[in-house]
């Protein structure tokens, strides 16, 4: 099992969710987060004054998938979240040791 953590642009959320749904992935955790990578914020002008906005709003998606579906899910994420510009985000993949369904103590991939 693999855990996928994807940081994406907020306006891409609906498109990404829709793309994941079409390949049968609908369980995920979504959080509103702030951060920056190489994009390093941007300048905003309000009433003639420039403000440096350091932390940009992003969306974090987290999901755990069976290892054999990893490539398919990652490819879907990449293609649906991409605009080609700086700030499109990142995807991180982790190994998952165990998954447990609290309700019935089910273990492993069947608990996903």
């Amino acid at each position, binding site marked *: 099992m693999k855990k996928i953590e994807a940081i994406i*642009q*907020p*306006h891409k*959320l*609906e498109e990404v969710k829709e793309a994941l749904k079409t390949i049968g992935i609908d369980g995920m955790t979504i959080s*509103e*987060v*702030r951060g920056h990578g190489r994009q390093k914020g*941007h300048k*905003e*002008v*309000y*009433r*003639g*004054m*420039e403000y440096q906005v350091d932390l940009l*709003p992003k969306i974090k998606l987290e999901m755990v998938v069976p290892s054999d579906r990893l490539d398919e899910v990652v490819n879907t994420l990449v293609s649906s979240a991409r*605009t080609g*510009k700086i*700030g499109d985000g990142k995807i991180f993949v982790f190994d998952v040791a165990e998954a447990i369904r609290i309700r019935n103590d089910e273990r492993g991939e069947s608990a996903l």
Partner: protein
Amino acid sequence: MCPETWRLLPAEAAERRIAQRSEAAGGMVADAFARHLAPVFSNGVAALAVGGFGRRELFPHSDIDVMLLTRQEISSTKLKEPAGRFMQELWDTGLRLSHSVHTVDECCQVYDHNVELSISLLDQRFLAGDSAVHAELETELPRFYRMHGRSIARQLAKLSGLRRAKFHNSIYHLEPNIKETPGGFRDMQVAQWMSRLLPAYSAPDLKAPWAFLAPIRVFLHEASKRDDNLLSFELQDAMAGQPAEMMRSYYRHARTVAVAADQALLSAEESQPSLIRQLREWRSRLSNSEFTVSRDRVFLRAAGQLSSEPDLVFRLLEFVARHGIDVSPDLERRLASASDEIAKAALTKPLWPLLETVLSQPKSSVAVRLMHRTGLLGALIPEWARIDCLVVRDYYHRYTVDEHTLVAMEVLESIPDKRFADLMQEVDGSALLRAAILLHDTGKGSGREHSSESERIAAALGKRIGMPQHDIDRVRQLVALHLELSSTMNTRDMDDGRTARILADRVGTVEQLKALTLLTFADISAVNPTAMTSWRGDQLWRAYVIGREELTRELETERIHDFHGADTRVARFLEGLPGRYLRTHSGEEFAGHAALAELAEEKGVALDLVRSNGYWRVVVAAPDRPGLFASIAGALSAFGMNILKAEAFANSNGHILDTFTFGDPLRTLELNPSETDRLRDTIARVVLGKQDVRKLIASRRSSAKPRRVEARIGFNNDASQSATLVEIVAEDRPGLVYDLASTMSNAGCDIVVVLIDTEASKALDVFYVTAKGAKLDAARQASLRSALMEACSTGRV
């Protein structure tokens, strides 16, 4: 979870089931008492039913509260073993029993931290044991409540306030807890308890709400097999063929209960010792010849007929909306019973002027809520009645449509985020913004797309109630676009310039963008208490900023060209004016201004000075020449006028159209009609260059007041292809516009477009300027910046 055939019991059957369970449980307690406690304590101990058990209101899974009442204190070693067996037996039969042990003396004392004991004894009844001990309690209790009823009532009011606050003091939850939510069983009990604690208060008849709620609660307990009182969507579906209709009835009954509880809680407050009461009387100084404020409530002085005096009712509503103080319970009852007649009498005249005075006040939500509770709002605006208690199921929405709308209005009165709070101070036409909020969801439940349906309703209503066409257009645009900013921040790339252009194109003016931003802020915040996260606040702000930047940029770049739909004279005048002109003026004004421009062509200057809504406005047309804007601003300042807004536009024929809106703080023009002619004449002379404006204002003293707003000046050479954008935020003062404009003229800059605005004590000025027909280079920007800073800070040029 429940079989499909389950339906609600009729009220009588539910009542029977509740009474039967109480009887059965009473019998079981008596049996267990006889077996385990009576053999040890032949006298001096009795078992009492208290709380809901005492009232014979045991729902299928309600807890059972039993009190062991003793004459004297019994040592715990003696009591522990038989009481333990007594409890055990009852637990084993499946009853969820809580118990307490008290002496008669303890029952007749006030405990600050256990007021629940005194309240539970209001519903006590004898079950088993020594009836003589119970008789002692029965003798003592009335005296105890006579002495301490008021203080217990205040404690109860405090606890009820905390409970109700957990539900944001609202009955209109889509999935209510029918026991604890305001308007539920607990509120019903509070009303009944208060009538026994406070001699001055008597509870209204609440049999109908009880008969409605009891079968629902029986159903909830049986479906969940525990004491669960949450009326979830799933169980609403299970118990009713038309769940939405059932919920509408629920809210109407809950409203009756909540009003009764409100009045009970108010009576408890009024029983406060006079010193504390006096502290709350500070607002009584707001009283006037028609209304008295006492104990934080508004009373009517004259016993006039509300139904025949709609103007009086609206003056009352305006008073409530200005001070944010609700009316007395009695006055509210009178409004409610006369609401249809009041509406009938009010609707013989256009409604909007009356409604506008209410909606312009800072605490208008208090008045709108009052109108809603008394039925006056629905009687005046039948479109509102359509969303009264309307349920639209949505995972995120916590409230019914009407409640969501009212919460949204309240949000605007205490905005926690400073950026949006400042924007609220700046918004132009707050009554229109509030009208848009009131109507933004009226199209819900129609089965059609609700934004456009609400827009249709707003347009028809605005016309019917006599709203000016320009205001109707503003309100209907806000209603139609009320999801636009949400959609911009959620689904569009805000780094992409096209997003800002689309937004600016749809919204049209900075004024509308501000109102729309606030409407969106209120709309999201009123979905549920945690919906407006700081993350979403930042996103919404970003959408506002990119839209505003674009609209400011377009002031100079977007010009009217080949305007169709007007005669050639008007089209010639419009040619080359900024697009903003079209969005902020009506067709009638186009023609008037075109005529003014023609006159100016002939005479060198033409102007129109009018007074409206407490302000003055002068429109000046003239052939353009350097320093013109500064000259007019200077002439106004020399007359002691305070410029609030200004626009300076030029068309392709080299004609300017400058508009100044100004206040007359010393009432010079109002009190001396001849001064109006002199002002007109002076403006004409400075425009024609026959009078030197510098001499006119030479005698003006500079203001020595300390500055609270630090001046900020920004230059932007990317906003337009041909001019430099200069944005200035500074503390407003008389003569500031003249000082800034003349500083620019003195520095050799030509002013192309101007938009001056003042909000609270801030001046927000946008100038597009050129020097020798080109943008300002870095050196000129630097020198102009320091000259402007000097003008902002010292008031001397």
